[in-house]
């Protein structure tokens, strides 16, 4: 698109595009111009003066990072004059830089160090720096990172990345000239500033001035071995490099390469500082068997033998449907495939499900009905170019921090209009044109009212509706009654704001909907999703770039676990178990008799344990004793189930109920793949050796399968993926050798298929997009006299899910030590509650004690609790009422009361 420009650098001709700098073109073509303040993610400032070059026709040398290329430009990057200048610049830098390379963590990676060598600085410039006296600074006492002004060269990259990329605006330079130092506003300690501990500042620091506190002394950069893998926390699927000290078999730090897909070198607090769990002393190292009520160490043979004996017995007594399995969105695609295959082909039941049931079951159900495919329609990279972004029920900066970077970029740099619909005043509101603060559980009313306005004002895309969709007329009927005024009464959002939002969304060239658990975790979850699909089709915002309907998947591999059939109604690739043809295909492929009956979902499994119809439960890498709704009931079921197998990396809250506990590999110990939220299948690679006798998840499943008489044999994960490709057309073209450097996005039908950036281009997966008339229904539980508050649960940035992994990190613990309940300050005042007070929150199902967090994040009458904390488990309170279609429980709305203790 942009104009091609030819320039000559060091005698060779190169082509670049308008707007590129000389440095960009040089680096891209392998010409190394020294630089310290340059990071491709940042606007160039030309402050370090190292990238100076000579340009023909210009008298003075110019900084190549700020010099845009022009046709015919002739550049020389290494001349005697330039060399001399660089040497002087480096000498000056070393007056302020303590050259303690021998004891510095960055030794071997530090740019300043390598330039000092390259330009052969004399001893006198390396010997003594200007500042030597250490003084406390903004990082003193922080467990995540540390700043050493003595090694800082004041290039400003940390300050700029905090402002320009992360937009946390935590760091600044203070003072002037020789007294310049990096700090936070008012020198606040880092954890009290606006810092979100993303560690982007460390990632961009060209010297060792900023470093991971826990990495200090654990291995110098030159000795660390990097393994590229996929982050194990959320569904963004950031590519991370685990830096391991092979002598210690320990992950020393986590880095990411600028330019990598999908995160461009950016990470969040969990990816950067949350890997302590891998080498944690509490990791399970041997199988455990419950003997006389206590879990005791056992051998693998004993454990597998016992499992085989019990499963065989229960199956022969009560049939295969008396056994159920919970697969894991934390495990790899290969683990999930083998697990569901074992439950289906080895046991003979479709009772297999996983925690997607608790997060996006309604998305899969809703979008499959409307579009034919239940995944994110577009790619992460497309958000930044969207003209309008409608974020509803997604606290993106906390739950998907790296995707939030793209949203902020769209607004701040590309002038996109952002609409945030969320009962809470989330951080994104700061960037939003409109904040629609709807009452929890009233999304359908809000979305229908927006559609009402769009139709009323004739803003809908008639051509798209006519050519590509069906069932429109009935939907018009359904939204007709929901005028903005009526919606205002239900949602509390002012009618005019609804109108404005509708117009903004409808008029944008490309409008992208982003949603997550705020939409899905309702008894009307499927309806909510269908409404969003209606809205997108109404305005023709599906099947094109930077538009679409984008559910952000929660777990690192929840997309993959669904794709690979860890669901009770479908085989891998969303192929229905009740379709005779498909059923026959899988019986042939797996050489086994399969059940043609849809199995039980997560919550149904626990209810079936209560009535005795499920007697054995095999849990791989899940923690229902903390993650599932109405915990008292779930925990009773875990206690009651006759035989419980828990396969995990830690003795989780759930594993403590188990009869047999099996120690598994963590992600850093295994080979395989995860599929991220944008349908990209990415490699997971082994970086460290596993602890004790732990085994790979899929191998454990194969061992059990063999012991119950249905052997499944694979050499390695790659072979499993080949089998997946042979049975699931979505993954038809996936093979390990194709995704070595960059993952592929499904559908990827064959070995020549390039993968799919966005879905439904030209035609919907199901043919025509289907409108579904949806009408507002109340949540299952509404506040009343005794329980006057509406309680929602959700996530926060620093922790992950049940905290099994993230709570092992001291840096994260320092920032986020325990749970809390958010309450509006006026409500707090009424109850005489002050910020930080211990209070009791209760519903009809249970009560928990937690700390009050008083402010304006939630509106009056509403409460919010994160669900990560075992010491104040929010799910004691949540309602296990289910969406009738997707069977997802209503985590987001229940009636609660509070009491000061």
């Amino acid at each position, binding site marked *: 698109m942009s104009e091609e420009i030819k320039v000559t650098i060091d005698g060779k001709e190169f082509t670049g595009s308008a707007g590129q700098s000389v440095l960009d073109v040089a680096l891209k073509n392998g010409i190394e111009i020294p630089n310290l303040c340059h990071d491709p993610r940042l606007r160039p400032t030309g402050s370090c003066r190292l990238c100076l070059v000579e340009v023909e026709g210009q008298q003075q040398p110019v900084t190549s990072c700020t010099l845009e290329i022009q046709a015919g430009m002739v550049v020389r990057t290494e001349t005697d004059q330039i060399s001399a200048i660089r040497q002087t610049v480096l000498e000056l830098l070393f007056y302020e830089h303590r050259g303690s390379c021998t004891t510095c963590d960055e030794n071997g990676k530090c740019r300043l160090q390598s330039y000092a060598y390259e330009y052969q600085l004399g001893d006198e410039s390396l010997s003594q720096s200007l500042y030597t006296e250490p003084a406390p600074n903004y990082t003193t006492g922080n467990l995540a990172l540390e700043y050493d002004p003595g090694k800082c060269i004041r290039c400003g990259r940390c*300050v700029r990345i905090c*402002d320009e990329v992360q937009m946390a*605006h935590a*760091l600044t330079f*203070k*003072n002037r000239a020789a007294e310049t130092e990096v700090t936070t*506003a*008012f020198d*606040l300690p880092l954890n009290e500033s606006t810092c979100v501990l993303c560690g982007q500042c460390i990632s961009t620091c060209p010297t060792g001035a900023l470093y991971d506190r826990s990495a200090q002394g654990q291995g110098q950069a030159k000795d660390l071995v990097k393994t590229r893998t996929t982050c194990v926390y959320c569904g963004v699927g950031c590519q991370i490099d685990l830096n391991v000290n092979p002598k210690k078999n320990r992950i020393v730090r986590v880095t990411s390469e600028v330019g990598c897909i999908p995160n461009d070198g950016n990470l969040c607090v969990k990816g950067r500082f949350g890997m302590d769990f891998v080498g944690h002393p509490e990791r399970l190292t041997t199988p455990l068997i419950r003997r006389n009520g206590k879990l005791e160490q056992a051998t693998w043979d004993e454990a597998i033998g016992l499992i085989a004996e019990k499963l065989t017995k229960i199956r022969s007594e009560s049939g295969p449907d008396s056994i159920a399995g919970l697969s894991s969105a934390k495990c790899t695609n290969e683990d999930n495939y083998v697990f569901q295959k074992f439950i289906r082909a080895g046991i003979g039941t479709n009772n297999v499900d996983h925690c997607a049931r608790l997060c996006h079951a309604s998305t899969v159900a809703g979008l499959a009905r409307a579009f034919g495919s239940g995944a994110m329609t577009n790619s992460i990279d497309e958000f930044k170019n969207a003209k309008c972004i409608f974020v509803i029920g997604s606290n993106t900066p906390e739950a998907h921090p790296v995707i939030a970077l793209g949203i902020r970029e769209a607004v701040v740099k590309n002038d996109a209009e952002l609409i945030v619909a969320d009962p809470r005043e989330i951080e994104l509101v700061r960037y939003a044109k409109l904040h629609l603060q709807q009452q929890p559980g009233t999304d359908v009313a809000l979305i229908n009212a927006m559609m009402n306005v769009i139709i009323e004002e004739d803003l809908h895309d008639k051509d798209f509706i006519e050519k590509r969709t069906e069932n429109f007329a009935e939907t018009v009927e359904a939204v007709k009654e929901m005028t903005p005024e009526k919606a205002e009464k239900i949602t509390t959002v002012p009618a005019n704001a609804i109108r404005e939002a509708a117009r903004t969304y409808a008029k944008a060239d490309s409008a992208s909907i982003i949603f997550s658990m705020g939409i899905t975790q309702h008894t009307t979850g499927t309806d909510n999703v269908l409404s969003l699909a209606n809205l997108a089709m109404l305005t023709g915002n599906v099947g094109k770039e930077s538009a679409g309907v984008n559910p952000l998947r929660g777990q690192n591999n929840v997309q993959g676990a669904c794709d690979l059939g860890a669901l009770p109604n479908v085989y891998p690739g969303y192929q229905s178990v009740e379709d005779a043809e498909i059923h026959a295909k899988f019986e042939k492929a797996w050489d086994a008799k399969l059940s043609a009956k849809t199995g039980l979902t997560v919550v149904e499994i626990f209810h079936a344990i209560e009535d005795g119809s499920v007697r054995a439960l095999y849990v791989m890498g899940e923690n229902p004793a903390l993650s599932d709704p109405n915990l008292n009931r779930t925990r009773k079921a875990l206690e009651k189930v006759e035989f419980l197998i828990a396969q995990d990396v830690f003795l989780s809250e759930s594993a403590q109920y188990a009869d047999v506990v099996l120690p598994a590999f963590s992600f850093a110990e295994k080979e395989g793949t995860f599929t991220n939220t944008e349908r990209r299948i990415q490699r997971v690679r082994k970086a460290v050796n596993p602890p004790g006798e732990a085994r790979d998840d899929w191998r454990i499943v194969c061992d059990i399968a063999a012991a119950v008489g249905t052997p499944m044999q694979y050499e390695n994960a790659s072979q499993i993926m080949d089998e997946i490709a042979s049975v699931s057309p979505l993954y038809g073209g996936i093979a390990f050798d194709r995704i070595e450097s960059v993952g592929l996005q499904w559908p990827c039908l064959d070995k020549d298929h390039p993968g799919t950036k966005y879905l439904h281009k030209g035609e919907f997966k199901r043919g025509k997009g289907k409108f579904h008339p949806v009408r507002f229904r109340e949540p299952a539980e509404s506040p009343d006299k005794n329980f006057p508050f509406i309680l929602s649960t959700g996530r926060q940035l620093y922790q992950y899910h049940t905290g099994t992994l993230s709570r092992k990190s001291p840096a994260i613990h320092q920032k986020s030590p325990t749970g809390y309940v958010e309450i509006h300050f006026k409500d707090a005042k009424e109850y005489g509650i002050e910020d930080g007070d211990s209070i009791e929150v209760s519903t009809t199902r249970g009560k928990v004690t937690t700390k009050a967090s008083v402010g304006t994040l939630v509106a009056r009458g509403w409460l919010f609790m994160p669900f990560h904390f075992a010491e104040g488990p929010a799910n004691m309170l949540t309602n296990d009422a289910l969406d009738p279609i997707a069977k997802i429980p209503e985590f987001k709305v229940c009636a609660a009361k509070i009491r000061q203790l």
Partner: protein
Amino acid sequence: MQSKTEASLDKTPALKICESMGQITSDSLIPILQQIQDAYGYLPAEILSEVSKQTGLNANQMYGVATFYEQFHLEPRGRHTIRCCRGTACHVKGGRQIINAIKRKLNIEEGETTEDMQFTFETVACLGACALAPVMVVDGVYYGKMTHRRVGFVLDSLETVEKETT
């Protein structure tokens, strides 16, 4: 927000200033800081945080700018500001003694404020009045050809001392 030991300040003047600025751009930052300093005598962190909330200007940037320029002060100031020159001419003419005399008299170091909040004492690289060296400036008024004895006299009788002009 961490609250310092000082009692909460009245935010009304700050809110008024924010309102009066109209459309906020990055160019608004320095004028806002100047007006806040005029209203409060210095730039209290608590007030700047409020200004940040009201205007969307980031606190990190405010702090960067406020620490960059000599004109801004983040600590409360005394009623009177004394600036003493440490330029070459003043130094040769015994400026160091003047500085020491002020420190002894007020019992504070450079950059500090007396406990009774009467005096803030600073030194300056050059006051540009070398002919009058050694020089000190109190509340914008220049006192030339200072001696350490005159320091006490000037400070004791700020109201009555005869003003010398440059």
